């Protein structure tokens, strides 16, 4: 399965909308185990993405992901900026290969997160959503239940990366804010794929 430019644009647009309407939830999640700004950060990033896409309509998938990456990198201001930024930048480079499957694209984004964050699955970060989604896409079993299960799993983890890691055991029982914003990203993808 591959994503066409028009669908990919919808994907990013839906993601941006969810970020804007869920700012408060993301901030609240981050207040519990971080510094309370993930919603504000992502909203700032979302607005920058919208502005950049309005300024110049991307003509290729590579353009679209690169524009998204740069807007995030420049405006988010938190760890999620370089993280989402790296994921989308790596995706933008990889997607120049026309044969790239969607599952490979998401795995490349996930690998980008791991590289930038020096992290992996099980550390209670956004990676714990990206990796299961990538796996499910590869197995052609991607749907909302994958995201729900990933969030449920994230909740039970003890953080070992990011600010929540300072809390050790006390980080348990909370959804990681970055995992939640990534859930929005992939719920947006489901909406696009489901059409």
């Amino acid at each position, binding site marked *: 399965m591959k994503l066409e430019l028009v669908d990919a644009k919808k994907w990013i647009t839906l993601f941006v909308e969810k970020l804007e309407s869920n700012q408060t939830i993301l901030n609240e999640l981050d207040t519990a185990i*971080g*510094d*309370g*700004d993930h919603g504000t950060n992502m909203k700032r990033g979302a607005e920058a993405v919208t502005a950049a896409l309005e300024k110049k309509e991307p003509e290729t998938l590579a353009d679209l992901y690169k524009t998204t990456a740069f807007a995030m990198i420049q405006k988010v201001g938190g760890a999620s900026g370089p993280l989402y930024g790296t994921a989308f930048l790596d995706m933008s480079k990889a997607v120049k290969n026309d044969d790239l499957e969607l599952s490979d694209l998401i795995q490349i984004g996930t690998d980008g997160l791991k590289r930038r964050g020096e992290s992996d699955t099980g550390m209670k970060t956004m990676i714990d959503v990206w990796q299961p989604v990538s796996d499910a896409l590869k197995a052609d079993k991607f749907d909302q239940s994958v995201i729900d299960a990933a969030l449920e799993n994230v909740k039970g983890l003890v953080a070992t990366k990011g600010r929540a890691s*300072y*809390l*050790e055991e*006390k980080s348990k029982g909370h959804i990681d804010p970055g995992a939640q914003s990534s859930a929005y990203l992939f719920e947006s993808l489901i909406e696009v794929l489901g059409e």
Partner: protein
Amino acid sequence: MKYGILIVSHSANIAKGVKDLIAQAAPNLSITIAGGTEDGGIGSSLEKIQQAVDDNKGDEILAFYDLGSSKMNLEMLLEMIDRTIHKYDVALVEGAYTAATLAEVDSPLTTIEDNLKSLKIK
């Protein structure tokens, strides 16, 4: 709150910045600061430290400092007053952030101190 945080730095800007940084992650803690000399220069002031201790609302205080005279003035004050102040010889910014994050969620002192151990550099 059980624990308050005290920041002693040679620079008023560092002290203020550390407070801003940790207050974001620990908005309920009492964080008081003493930065720079009386006249705003680089150095330290016993009077500012005294004031920051007086203003701190923690039952006990976790204290962090940067260099030489911040430490000596802090220790001098410790000899003069009888509030419970725990002084940590750890990285200023990183230590204060670690302690504040844990104190914010009511972690016991043993947990806080366990986590500060690896930041000991002084």
